[in-house]
Structures are given as structure tokens and as C-alpha cells.
């Protein structure tokens, strides 16, 4: 199956993985996977969440150890026991969540990573090397800037520079485009192209078809821990890749026209001139007026950091109303606790499941019970009815066609499975109001469709949905109404059919109208 790339100076592969197998409790993450990586290539590793892409690369980087199989470097078997070993044979990896220290400068972060760091730092020399590399590969960053002041895209550049200065020849990037805006992603691909020309090997872990077709030379597809196939870019097409990624055909999203009359009855959620006071890095919400009725999906568009998180938290009760009032189901909930909000049928899918929704050291099943401990407790709380928790969870999992292990610690789930877990938990309680932030972040194509379908189903059943998202396509497909948040204020309120992506995009960035805020 391995195919020689066209421009290939060396005959053999730079690194070969042979029969790599790795299992975690409850999951076979990699089953006898073979992979060849050549110099001067961009190799995409494509697959759904939990297909085993990250695990395979973490084995190569020495982060995990394979149960069996071997790794060959230039044809000779080697053993990689730690990331340190991997770095010594010039393999580097950029993780999904970066590993930079925000309080230090770019140069300091890079210096920390270098092998053979002298006792006294030679700042000039390090800065010179950083500038060298950044000029050659278009990785412009200011070495003196603090990492905390950099944008996500710039932080990624620093991560790549870090590897380059440490002499890595093989760069592994774990879902690099996940956090990037479209134009930032394009810039990244250009950088990767430049690196490839100079003989670097780049492994791109991704589940986005677009990334793969845009820049990869060869594409390896994993499915459920197994190798589904390796293709040359020239042989690959979207259809072929989809067929390799999924065993069955995708069911397209079925958006029925809304059946419930809009503006009918008392709104499920109503904010009247609600304001919050920002703590730390949060954004203050200013005079928010918002209604979510039964049977409608209200979208909230905006660039991350303009008050979306605060809006979700305000609706839930996580932050207090400094001014104005909040009504849920027609009753004043301004000063009610989260417990009361939850108990009255509010589901909440936060933007980051790991930090905001789950207890990582408890099992998935235990996590399933957390939002409704009152419902599953027996004998006044002395006992929990785990059978019912399991039955409820499995029922929803089946309905959504999600599957993940229930008896493993939640932290061992992949990012996509965590998101699925939270969606299942929140849908299980058949909420009357759903607050969903970045619903499909980290989900693959199929799960994205399932998650969106679940929202539509909930709407059909008469629930209201507040959908916070940066994905305008998603908002335009799903929403009945749309508001745009900018700088903590509602910058616009539309029906999707009365506006277009460009108008909303301008409002999101504050580039149109009277929004002369200091952003």
C-alpha cells in the first residue's frame, strides 16, 4: 500500500511504524497499524474522533508506549521511550492544547525547549535564530512579546518555531486548524509547504476534509483504530476519503420547516436589559434583550470573546445579573440558583466540556448522573440507581447513534467523545431550554450531523434552543432567529432569510455601523 511520493530524494522512508498496537481500558486505539513517513512530504492522518490518530502519533512521540509493534528510523529499529527520546531523533509534536507558558516571552518559551540549554542564556543568539527561521518560513513573531499577548494563530507559530529551533525534522501537528480562522489556516498551509520544500516531514492530524485536500501529499485514513487505507493526493477525492472514513453512508441533515408558531406564548428565556460585571478577562454584557420561545432555535453569532461565554453563563446562573432581569419559563429567575434552573429543565452544553462540564476523574456513567442526582437518588440519597442512569444514557446514545464506553474515567475519552458524552447527558433530561455553545466543536462530520439533528428534534418537541456558535453556516442552516454579539452588546438581530453571511460577518468584527468599540 505505501506509495513513493513524487519528489523523493531518499529511497527509503524516514520513519516507519510497523504493526503498532495499543489498547486502553475499554478501547482498542490502534490495531496493527503500518505507516511510512518520507522526507519532504506532508502526510495527513485522517479519521473520525477516536479513530486512533492522536494515539498513534503520541506513540511515535514517546508519549505512550505501544503494546506491540516497532518503529524504524531510516530502516533501523529504535525504541522511543519518552518525548525526550523522540526529540533526540528529531521528531517534534505540537499538541492540540499548546504547551506554552503565557507569562514568558516567545524567546524564553523557545529557549526552554531547546536541548543543551547553557547555564547562562545567550539571548542574542536565540533571537537571531528565531528571526532566521521566521524569515525563511514566514513565521513572523516578535521574540520579545509575551505569549499571553499572542493570538492563537501566533502561538501556533511559536510552537512550530520551537520545534524548528530544536532541530526537528519530523513535525507532528495535532488538529492544527481546529482553533484557526480560515485565513489563518491558509497561512499555516503556506508555512507547511515551505517546510516541505526544505525536506521536512510533516504529519497533519485532522478530521477536516478541506485541510487534507488543500495541502497533503499523501493521506492515511484510520477508522476505529484500524488502518483504512493510504492514498496519494492525486488519487484522492472527497468521496473516496469519506468512503474510507465511514463504513456507512452519511445521512444528510434533515431541516424541516418550523412547525411551531413563533412568538407564541410566554418565552422560555427572556433577558430584559441584562448586564453583567466582568471579572478578570471576561467581557461585560451590556443591556442584553433576548427572547427564546418554545419551538425555536435562536443563534448567537460572534467572534469568540465578545460575550458568548458570559451570555450562556448568565442564562444558566453561573454569573449574576448586575442589572436588568432574567425570566425563565415566565418566572423571574434573576436570583435563582443554578440548581433550580437545571431542575426546571435547562440543558447546558458548554464550549469546553473538559473544564466546564465533566468531572474528569469520575467514570462516564457517574458523570451522566451529575446533572440530575436528585432524579437518580433512592432512599433519600443513600443510594444511587445506576441501572436507571445507564438505561437513560443508552437510550439517548442509541437515538443519537453515539457510542462511547461508560465505565472508563471521563478523562480517558477523546475530545470528540467528551463532547458526545455531554450532548447525550444534556439531551437525556429532555430539556425545555437548551443552551449550547460551540455544539459541534471537535466533532467529526457524522457526529456533527447527529448533534444538529438532535437540536432540531428538540425544537420539534417544543424545546427552545440558544445556539452560540462561530460557524455561520451552522447558524444559517439551523436558526430561526439570529443575534450578533460584539463587545458584549447585541450588534444585530435578524431572521436568517433577511440577512447574509457578509452582513453578519461585518457586524461580528465590528467593521460596519456605529460600533467604534476599542476592540
Amino acid at each position, binding site marked *: 500500500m505505501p506509495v513513493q511520493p513524487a519528489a523523493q530524494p531518499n529511497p527509503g522512508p524516514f520513519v516507519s511504524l510497523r504493526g503498532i498496537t495499543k489498547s486502553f*481500558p475499554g478501547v482498542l486505539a490502534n490495531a496493527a497499524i503500518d505507516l511510512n513517513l518520507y522526507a519532504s512530504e506532508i502526510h495527513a492522518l485522517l479519521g473520525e474522533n477516536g479513530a486512533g490518530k492522536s494515539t498513534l502519533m503520541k506513540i511515535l512521540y514517546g508519549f505512550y508506549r505501544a503494546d506491540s509493534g516497532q518503529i524504524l528510523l531510516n530502516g533501523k529499529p529504535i525504541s522511543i521511550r519518552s518525548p525526550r527520546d523522540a526529540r533526540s531523533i528529531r521528531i517534534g509534536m505540537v499538541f492540540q492544547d499548546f504547551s506554552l507558558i503565557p507569562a514568558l516571552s516567545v524567546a524564553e518559551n523557545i529557549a526552554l525547549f531547546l536541548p543543551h540549554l547553557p547555564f547562562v542564556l545567550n539571548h542574542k543568539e536565540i533571537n537571531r535564530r528565531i528571526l532566521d527561521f521566521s524569515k525563511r518560513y514566514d513565521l513572523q513573531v516578535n521574540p520579545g512579546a509575551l505569549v499571553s499577548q499572542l493570538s492563537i494563530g501566533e502561538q501556533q507559530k511559536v510552537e512550530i518555531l520551537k520545534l524548528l529551533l530544536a532541530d526537528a525534522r519530523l513535525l507532528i501537528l495535532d488538529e492544527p486548524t481546529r482553533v484557526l480562522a480560515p485565513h489563518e489556516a491558509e497561512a499555516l498551509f503556506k508555512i507547511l509547504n515551505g517546510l516541505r520544500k526544505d525536506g521536512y516531514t510533516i504529519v497533519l492530524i485532522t478530521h477536516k476534509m478541506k485541510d487534507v485536500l488543500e495541502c497533503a501529499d499523501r493521506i492515511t485514513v484510520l477508522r476505529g483504530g484500524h488502518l483504512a487505507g493510504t492514498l496519494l493526493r492525486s488519487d484522492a477525492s472527497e468521496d473516496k476519503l469519506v468512503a474510507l472514513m465511514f463504513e456507512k453512508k452519511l445521512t444528510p441533515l434533515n431541516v424541516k420547516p418550523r412547525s411551531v408558531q413563533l412568538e407564541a406564548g410566554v418565552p422560555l428565556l427572556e433577558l430584559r436589559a441584562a448586564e453583567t460585571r466582568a471579572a478578570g478577562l471576561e467581557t461585560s454584557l451590556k443591556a442584553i434583550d433576548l427572547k427564546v420561545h418554545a419551538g425555536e432555535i435562536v443563534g448567537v453569532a460572534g467572534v469568540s470573546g465578545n460575550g458568548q461565554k458570559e451570555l450562556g453563563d448568565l442564562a444558566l446562573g453561573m454569573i449574576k445579573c448586575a442589572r436588568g432581569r432574567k425570566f425563565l419559563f415566565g418566572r423571574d429567575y434573576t436570583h435563582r440558583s*443554578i440548581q433550580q434552573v437545571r431542575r426546571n429543565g435547562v440543558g447546558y452544553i458548554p464550549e469546553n466540556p473538559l473544564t466546564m*462540564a465533566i468531572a*474528569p476523574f469520575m467514570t462516564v456513567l457517574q458523570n451522566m448522573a451529575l446533572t440530575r442526582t436528585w432524579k437518580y437518588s433512592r432512599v433519600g440519597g*443513600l443510594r444511587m440507581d445506576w441501572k436507571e442512569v445507564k438505561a437513560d444514557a443508552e437510550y439517548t446514545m442509541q437515538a443519537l447513534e453515539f457510542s462511547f464506553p461508560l465505565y472508563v474515567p471521563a478523562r480517558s475519552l477523546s475530545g470528540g467523545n467528551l463532547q458526545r458524552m455531554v450532548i447525550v447527558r444534556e439531551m437525556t433530561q429532555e430539556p425545555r431550554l437548551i443552551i449550547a455553545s460551540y455544539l459541534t466543536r471537535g466533532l467529526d462530520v457524522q457526529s456533527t450531523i447527529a448533534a444538529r439533528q438532535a437540536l432540531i428534534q428538540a425544537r420539534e418537541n417544543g424545546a427552545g434552543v440558544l445556539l452560540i456558535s462561530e460557524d455561520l453556516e451552522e447558524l444559517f442552516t439551523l436558526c430561526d432567529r439570529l443575534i450578533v454579539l460584539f463587545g458584549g452588546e447585541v450588534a444585530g438581530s435578524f431572521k436568517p432569510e433577511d440577512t447574509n453571511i457578509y452582513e453578519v460577518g461585518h457586524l461580528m468584527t465590528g467593521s460596519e455601523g456605529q460600533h467604534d468599540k476599542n476592540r
Partner: protein
Amino acid sequence: MTKIAETVNRFPAGGQKVLQTVVRYLLMILLACIMFGVILVIAGKDPIASYKDILSSTLGSAYGFSEVIVSMIPMLLTALAVALPFKVGLINIGGEGQLYIGAAFATFGALTFPNLPAWVLLPLMVILGMLGGALWAFIPGYLKSIGLVNETITSLLLNSVAPKIVGFLILGFWHSPRDTVRTPNFVDAARLSTFFGTRVHLGLVIGLILLIVFWLVMKYTRWGLEMGAIGSNPQAARRNGIPLAKYLVVIMCLGGAIAGLAGMVQVSGFYGTLFPNFSMGLGFMGFMICWLAGGDPLGIVLMAFVVSVIYSGGNLLQLTRGLPYAVINILLAFTLFIVLGRPNFFKGKKS
């Protein structure tokens, strides 16, 4: 759909796990003893004979053994007073202070109502002791719950306040007519009953029962689940509708109540009187034991026992081997280091 090859998730069976824990701790203590043996050799003493002395004086006789149990009783409670708040992520270093205030409250009961029958007076003292400890823990707990001050710092600082208050009460109001530095002896009705003619008192039963209750609550109940969620991720727990602030205050107060109970048990069961500095670091000892045991109830019993053996034996080394009493701290420190290093002797046996 992701196809996941689900293998059965195997946890070691309950009994086997307990056995492993016990053997593991015993091996760790053996290691500490070997290291301390080296120190003894350097000091020119015979380690084998010294250990023989320690063991025969503590475990070798019924009397010695009972004395070990006696010194272990308050440690069980002060360790639990740390273990419980730790489940919700609170670090309670205030056991020492809570113990003093609890003892003072219980003493107040014993001195004010000497004519009540035991079956009324003892429960009253228990309630007063727990109330005192809880009040003392409420201060750091409440300040933490409103997001104002870290409970670690406040509970630690309050430790130096409590003994002063107790000293003031004794010297100012409660001291006996004949002796200005302690209260009069408690009436018999205010003393916890002892067993089999030893000094082992009812506090042992109280401590063990509370540890079992703690274990059951954490394992089976709704509150245990919610506490686990708070300990694992407080932000998420709050968003999931678990009343975080309420839990922080209540659990901190419960922890304080247990430490206060330790104070009550100590004055009622052991001394039968209250005097300044009666604790001699029981609260801190409980903190250490809890951390050594990783908050595990069975581990707390084991570690409390071991620490008691070391302390009781240390007294004897001073007499028979001419070693300064402080050397026993070296053995204790070795134990601390090794247990905190958590060597895993069962690596090979993991499936």
C-alpha cells in the same frame, strides 16, 4: 459510527484490592525501618535490638498494645477531619485549632452540668464539641465559599488563635481551686467509658464508626457522588447544578466538627480534664496521617496505628537506648517520604 472494540473493564476485585493496599503499606514501612536502621547503626546503636524494644514494648504486651490504641484514637478523628474536606478539594490544616475549640466547648458542658446523668451529659458534650469545631471551621469555610480567602491559609492561621482562647478560658475562669493551670477533674458522668481495665475508651468505637460511615457515604450516596464531582472539577460541578458554595461551607464545618469531636474525646476519654497545650500536635498529626493514607479510610486506620507505634516506641528508645526522643522524628520523616513517594510494588501484577 466509531467502532470501538470494547474489552471488559477489569477492576481488581474488592478483597484483593484491600489486601494489596495493606501489603503495599507494610512494605513501605519496612523500607522506612531499614533506612532508619542505617541511622541507628551510624549512631552506634544496635538497630535490631532497638526495633525489638519498640515492638515488644508496643505490640509485645497487652498493655503496650492498648496504649498504642489509646494514642491512635484522636488521630483517627483528626485524620478524618482532613480527609472529608479534601473530597471537595478543601485543604483543612485547621484540625489543631478546631480540636482545641471542640475540647473547650465540651469542657464547658462538663463543668456547667456536672449533675446530669451520663446518658444525657455525654451526648451533650459530643454535640458541644462538634459544634465548637464546626464554628471554628465555619470561618475559613465561609470565607472560601464567597471566594474571598484560601481556606488553607485561614485554617492554618486560626490554629495559633484557638489554643490562646482555650488558655484564656482555663486560666481566667475554669481553673480548679487548687491548680491554676487546669480545670477540675470531670465528674464520672462526663467521662467516656473505658474497656477491659485499659485506657482504651469509647472514642475508638466512635472513630471507627465515623470512618466506616465516611466510606459508605463516599461510595454509595448521592452526596458522595456530588462531593466527588466537586473535588474533581468544581466549575463543572457548579454548572451541573450542584450547590458548590453550600457544600464547601457544610463540608468544612463537618470536618471541623469531627476535629472538635476529637478534642471532646481526648478531654473526656483520656485526660478527664482540660489544660493548655493538651493536644501536642494531634491536629497536625491527623493531617499527616490523612495525606500518608491518601484520604482512604482503611489507610487512615493503618497509618494512625503505625504512627502510634512509632511514637509510643520512641518514648522507650529514650529510656533503654539512651537516644534523644527526637530521633523518632527521623523514622517518622522517612515514613513520610517513602509513602509520599508511593513506590508501587505491584507494577508487575497489573493486568
